[in-house]
C-alpha cells in the first residue's frame, strides 16, 4: 500500500479537483448547495493540507470571499436593481441626470433583490474558496517542478519570483526602520523615494547574486541537439500555433467549413504538445524525487470532475433546483444528485494519503554533545519549538 503512505498528493491532482469543484459551483446559486461545496472544500483542506507556509492561506481566501459577499450586497444597495415586494429598509432614491439614465442610486432595499445579490456574491466567494483550497493543498513550487522539460526554466523563474516577494516586504520593513534612525518618520508620497531606492537597490543586488549563483549551478544548460531535431521542434511549435489559431477561428465562426473547427484545433494542440515534448529533449534537466501519480491522484481528480458532471446533469434536467427561488421567495430546493456530487468531492479528505509530518529539526540536536550547543541557535525568527529544544538541552 505504498500509495497510501504519508506523502504529498500530486499538486496537479489537487488543482484538477479544485477546478472541477469550481466548475460545478459556477452554475449554482442555490445557497444550500453552495454551502455544501464550501464545507467540502474546507473539510478537504483541513484534513489534507501540509505544513508549508501557504497551507495556512485558506483562511485568507475565506476572508476574501466574505469581503466579496459584503461588497456585492453594498453595491446592490447603492446601484442595484431593487426587485421584490418586501421592503427591508426604506431609502430615498436619487435620480441621476439624463447622461447617466438608467442608473438609480439607493432606493428602497427589498428582501428578494438583496438575497439575490448575496447569493450571487456567495457563488463567487465559493469559487474563490475552491481556488484557495487548491493553493493551500498544492505546493505551487512542486507544481512548477512537474512542468515538462521545455517549460521547466520558465517554472524556475516563476519559483524565484515567488521567493523574492516576501524578501521585498522584509527589505521595505528594514529600510523603514533604518529611516527612523535618521529621524525621518514622514509617510506618504514624499517618503517613497527614500524607501524605494534602497529597496530597489537591495532587490537588484540580490537578483544579480541569485542569477549568478543559478548560472554557476547549471541553470539553462543545453544538450547538443542535432539540426534536424531543432528544425522539427520549430516546425511542430509553429505549425501547432497556426493550426490552433485556425481551429479557434473555426470553432467560433459558424460559417466556416466543418474541418476548420474542432479537427484543426485538435491537430494544433497535438502539434504543440509534440513541439514541447521534442523541445524538452534539449534540456538535460531531471527531477529529484518527482511526485508520483498513483490511484489516489486519479481518485482526487475524478471526485472533482464527478461533482461538475453531477451538477451538469441536474442543470439539464431540473435547472430551477440549482437556483435560489426569488419570485416568489421560497426555500431552496434540495437536488439530491447535485448534493451527492459535492459529497463525492469530499472523498479525497479520507481516501488520499495523509500529508507528511512537519520537519522535525532539532531532534538530532538534543543528542548532540554539549560542546555543540552553539550551532543550534537559529536566527531571530527561530520557531518556538526550536527554542524549547535548546532549553532542554542546556
Amino acid at each position, binding site marked *: 500500500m505504498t500509495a497510501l503512505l504519508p506523502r504529498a498528493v500530486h499538486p496537479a491532482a489537487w488543482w484538477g479537483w479544485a477546478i472541477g469543484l469550481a466548475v460545478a459551483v459556477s452554475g449554482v446559486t442555490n445557497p444550500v448547495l453552495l454551502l455544501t461545496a464550501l464545507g467540502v472544500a474546507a473539510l478537504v483542506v483541513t484534513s489534507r493540507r501540509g505544513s508549508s507556509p501557504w497551507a495556512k492561506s485558506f483562511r485568507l481566501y475565506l476572508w476574501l470571499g466574505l469581503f466579496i459577499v459584503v461588497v456585492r450586497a453594498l453595491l446592490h444597495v447603492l446601484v442595484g436593481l431593487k426587485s421584490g415586494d418586501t421592503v427591508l429598509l426604506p431609502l430615498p432614491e436619487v435620480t441621476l441626470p439624463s447622461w447617466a439614465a438608467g442608473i438609480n442610486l439607493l432606493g428602497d432595499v427589498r428582501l428578494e433583490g438583496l438575497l439575490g445579490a448575496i447569493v450571487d456574491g456567495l457563488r463567487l466567494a465559493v469559487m474563490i474558496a475552491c481556488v484557495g483550497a487548491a493553493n493551500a493543498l498544492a505546493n505551487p513550487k512542486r507544481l512548477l517542478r512537474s512542468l515538462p522539460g521545455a517549460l521547466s526554466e520558465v517554472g524556475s523563474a516563476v*519559483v524565484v519570483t515567488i521567493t523574492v516577494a516576501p524578501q521585498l516586504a522584509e527589505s521595505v520593513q528594514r529600510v523603514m526602520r533604518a529611516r527612523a534612525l535618521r*529621524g525621518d518618520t514622514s509617510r506618504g508620497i514624499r517618503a517613497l523615494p527614500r524607501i524605494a531606492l534602497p529597496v530597489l537597490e537591495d532587490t537588484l543586488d540580490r537578483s544579480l547574486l*541569485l542569477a549568478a549563483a543559478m*548560472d554557476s549551478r547549471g541553470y539553462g544548460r543545453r544538450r547538443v541537439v542535432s539540426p534536424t531535431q531543432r528544425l522539427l521542434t520549430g516546425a511542430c511549435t509553429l505549425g501547432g500555433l497556426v493550426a490552433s489559431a485556425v481551429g479557434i477561428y473555426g470553432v467560433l465562426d459558424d460559417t466556416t467549413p466543418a474541418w476548420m473547427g474542432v479537427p484543426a484545433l485538435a491537430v494544433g494542440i497535438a502539434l504543440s504538445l509534440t513541439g514541447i515534448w521534442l523541445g524538452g529533449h534539449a534540456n538535460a534537466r531531471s527531477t529529484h524525487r518527482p511526485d508520483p501519480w498513483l490511484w489516489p491522484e486519479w481518485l482526487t481528480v475524478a471526485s472533482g470532475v464527478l461533482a461538475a458532471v453531477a451538477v451538469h446533469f441536474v442543470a439539464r434536467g431540473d435547472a430551477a433546483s440549482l437556483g435560489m427561488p426569488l419570485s416568489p421567495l421560497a426555500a431552496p430546493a434540495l437536488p439530491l444528485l447535485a448534493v451527492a456530487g459535492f459529497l463525492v468531492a469530499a472523498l479525497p479528505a479520507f481516501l488520499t494519503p495523509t500529508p507528511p509530518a512537519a520537519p522535525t529539526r532539532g531532534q538530532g540536536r538534543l543528542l548532540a554533545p554539549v560542546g555543540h550547543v552553539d550551532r543550534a541557535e537559529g536566527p531571530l525568527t527561530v520557531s518556538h519549538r526550536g527554542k524549547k529544544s535548546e532549553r532542554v538541552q542546556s
Partner: protein
Amino acid sequence: MIEFDHVSVTFDGADQPALRDVTLEIDEGELALVIGRTGSGKSTLLGALTGRVPHFTGGTLAGHVRINGRDTREHRPRDLADLIGVVGQDPLAGFVTDTVEEELAYGMEQLGLSSATMRKRVEETLDVLGIADLRSAALTELSGGEQQRVAIGAVLTTHPKVIVLDEPTSALDPTGAEDVLATITRLAHDLAVTVVVAEHRIERVLQYADTVVHIGTNGVVTQGDPAEVMLTAEVAPPVIELGRWAGWSPLPLSVRDARRRARSWRQLPPGQPATGQHSAGEAAAPAGHPHEGEALLEARGIVVRHDGVVAVADVDLTLRSGEVTALMGRNGAGKSSLLWAIQGTGALTKGTVRMTNSIAGQAIDVRSLDAAQRRRHVGLVPQSAADLLYLDTVGAECDQADRESGRDPGTCRSLLDDLAPGIPDDRHPRDLSEGQRLALVLAVQLTADPPVLLLDEPTRGLDYSGKAALRRALHGLTARGRSVVVSTHDVEFVAETADRVVVMASGEVVADGPTRDVVVSSPAFAPQVSKITAPQPWLTVDDVRYAVPEPS
C-alpha cells in the same frame, strides 16, 4: 587543474585593469588561499576562475583561463557547472529552492543525473557535512553556519573537481565560521577536491593551504609558498604580525606553531598587563579601569519579544562615558534586538531606557522621544548601513544630514573627512568601498552628536586597515566622553578596541566585564595573541611589543 595564462581583466569604464597579467597554476587536490585587501580584486580573480568574469559581469578578459583543459572563453559558467562548484559570501542569496534536500539536489537536476544517483548523493552529502537532521528543514530557518554548510553541500553533490569559496565565513559568528572552516579543510583532505578559497580569517585556513595567491595593489598577483608569501603580504593576522616582529623563520602559520615558538615568553615574569589597549586617545579613558566614567545611559529590565520568541530576556545595561563596549554572542543571541530597543526605534516589550546625562540635568526616557529627538541622544548604525543612504551623491547625503540634525552646513562633511579623507562630493554612495560607506553612515549619524553611539556589526567586510581606521574613530569619540557599543563577532577587533565586553546568549547577558577578564578565559572569544602567549595577560601584538624586551 586551474591555469591562468597572462590574464588581465579590465571592467568597462575603468582606467586601470582590476587584474594585471596574472599567471598562476593550481594543481589537482590543492588548497589555494586567495588573500588581499578589500577591493583588491579577490572576487574578480575568483570570478575569472568560474567564468562569471566576463560572461556575467561584462568587462574585457585578456589571456586564457583553463579549468581542467576547458577555456572559459568558450565555456559559460553553466557549461562549467559539472566541473566547478561556487559558494558565495551570503548563502541565503544563492539558494534557489526552499528546503535543504531540494537545495542539495538542485545542481544535480540541472545536470540531468538519474533519480537513483541523486537519492544516493543527497544522502552521502548530508552525512559528509553532518547535517542529516536538517534534511527537510526550511533553509531560512537554519543558522548562518548551517546555511553555509548546506551551500557547500549543494555544490558538492555534483561531484565537482574544483570548489571555489568567496569569503564563506564573513557573515558567520565565530562558532559557525569554525564549523564551515572545518568542512572546507575536510574537502581538501578527504575528498581530493581542488579548493580555492578567499578568506579574511586567514589564520584559520593558512595552516592547511598548499599555496597562497596574494593580490596586491594595482592588481598585481603573486603566488607562492604560504610562509614566504605571508612575510610580505599586505594583509596579516595577528599571528603573522607577531611572527614578523619576532623574526621567526620560517614564519609560523598557525596559533599552534606560534605557541611552540613563544615558549620563552611564557616564562617571563607575569608583569603588569600592558597599559595600552589603545594607542591613541586613551588619555580621557583610564585603560584597565573601564567602570569609572559617568553613566550616560541606563537600560533596566529590557525584554524584547518577537512573535512569542523572547529575543532579549530581562537585560540591565549601563553605558558609561569614555567606554567602548563590545557586545558579543552567537547569531540570534539578541544583540541586534537589544541595540534597537536601547535606541528606541526597535520593539521593546518591557523595560526602561533612561539617559542620565548631567548636561540635561535630569533623566530622559529615550523611548518617549520622537525619532528626530532620539537620534540626538542615541545614534545607531544598523547592520546593513547602506539602508540609511538614499540620495545619489555623497555631498547630498552630507547636506541632508546637516539639515535633519539642525547643524551648521559642512558639519557632516568635516566629520567624514576626519573618518575617511578624500571622498569626492559627487561620488555615488554605492560606488564607495565598504569602509568608505561605513564612514559616510557613521558621519551622518555623528552629525547629530549623540552621547551614546551604537554600531551593529560594523566590521563586516572591513579588512585590517579598515578596522584600524574604525578603531581610531571610535577611540576619538570615547576620548570626548562619548559612549560606544559595538556588536561584533570579530574577536581581534574586540581585543584591540573594547574596554568592556558583554556576552549574550539566548537573550540573556552571560558575561559582563573588562575585555581582558572576559575574553581570555573563553575558548571561542580569546584573541590569537592571548592563545599564543597564555598564561600571560596579553591580548594584542602591541601588548607583546610593550612587554617583551627582546623578541627572540
